[in-house]
């Protein structure tokens, strides 16, 4: 009996993860909150689902939209009671963005951030690969961009401005 409940619960948790993998980042609608490493944990407690998320940037104004989207998706899945917790630990890192999401970012025209493993020198190297032509002959124009998580580069090879996801 107990084993049965555990199996059922783990299947339900699996199903929730899959559903959350369909919830897109409101500012980058080609990648999901799961691929971005924003969803940290899913728990089922009696009739309540507890989803733990971590913000990419702590002041990200899209956080409210993300929470609302998660609740909406899980309500559609049949869960009336969804609680969302936020955590800062461990601090979100762009290193968590999955390989599949990096490819999607590139296709979207947004250069993926370099893997830096916490090394500030790599993080602030200011070398980006142009998502349009693949050239590294690029220059940083602005460490800040249209959203908290983007910076603006210029590609000297194809003469196009482009954005890079800001390494964090």
């Amino acid at each position, binding site marked *: 009996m107990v084993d049965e409940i555990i199996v059922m619960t783990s299947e339900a948790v699996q199903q929730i993860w899959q559903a959350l993998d369909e919830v897109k980042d409101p500012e980058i609608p080609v990648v999901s909150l799961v691929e971005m490493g924003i969803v940290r944990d899913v728990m089922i407690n009696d009739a309540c689902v507890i989803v733990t998320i971590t913000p990419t940037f702590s*002041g*990200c104004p899209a956080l409210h939209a993300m929470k609302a989207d998660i609740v909406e998706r899980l309500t559609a899945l049949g869960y009336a009671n969804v609680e969302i917790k936020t*955590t800062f630990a461990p601090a*979100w890192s762009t290193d968590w963005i999955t390989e599949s999401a990096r490819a999607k970012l590139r296709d979207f025209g947004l250069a993926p951030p370099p893997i830096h493993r916490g090394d500030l020198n790599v993080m602030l190297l200011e070398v980006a690969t142009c998502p349009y032509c693949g050239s590294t002959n690029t220059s940083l124009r602005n*460490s*800040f961009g249209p959203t908290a998580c983007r910076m603006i580069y210029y590609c000297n090879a194809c003469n196009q401005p482009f954005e890079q996801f800001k390494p964090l």
Partner: protein
Amino acid sequence: MNPELKQALVDYLLAMADDELILGHRNSEWCGHAPILEEDIAFANIALDEIGHAIVWYELAADVLGEERDTYANRMVYFRDAPDYRNAQMVELPKGDWAFTMLRQYLFDQFEMVRLEKLTQSSYTPLAEAAAKICTEEIYHLRHTQAWVRRLGLGTEESNRRMQTALNELMRYYEQLFSPSLADTLLFEANIVPFQTELMVHTLELIVPFLVEANLIPPRGSNFVGPNDVIYRHEHTEHLNDLLSNLQQVARLDPMAKW
């Protein structure tokens, strides 16, 4: 946590939050007015980050008090009058010229970076975790404002003069930033926050050589606010009233409105 310590922690968090909120709001006044487009984008982002960090500290204070996070933050921001605000005077001063704005932001960023690094060791885990998170974002602020301090300090005669004027003005207010509440000692003894003198020494060790390299002369001794001229956190200049009337007017038109 005993009630006295709890109150001290709430006061400290509120002062941190108010500093970030008021500075963020001041910075937002450049939106659409910055000298170049790239800078307009950059500085609006910095303003947004600071306001976002303010929300983090308000929420931590709400947690300590057992209050609902959103309601508490909104009440603190929109429905307190100037004497109840706990921000340092340095952040409420009008935005001034570009030199003043950039130098103020640099001085704030460097101070904040030193404090955040120390707060990552706080015995109060939620504070330590939030500090670690915000630290990663502040790196971009500091790098940006450092570049501007160098650019303007080493730029033309006029840019250097404007920076020096701003520095002389700002340094009179700088010390107040380091003392968020009167009950700091309680928090320090509980290993929740760093000792303010230590914080100040570390920050000055970083900013003084940096300013000198940018061809600026940091004021000494009597130009700092002396111990007899301590400015308390409930004391404000008339500028805070102006800022708050702008910040709060819409919310106060209809306090029960749902956004």
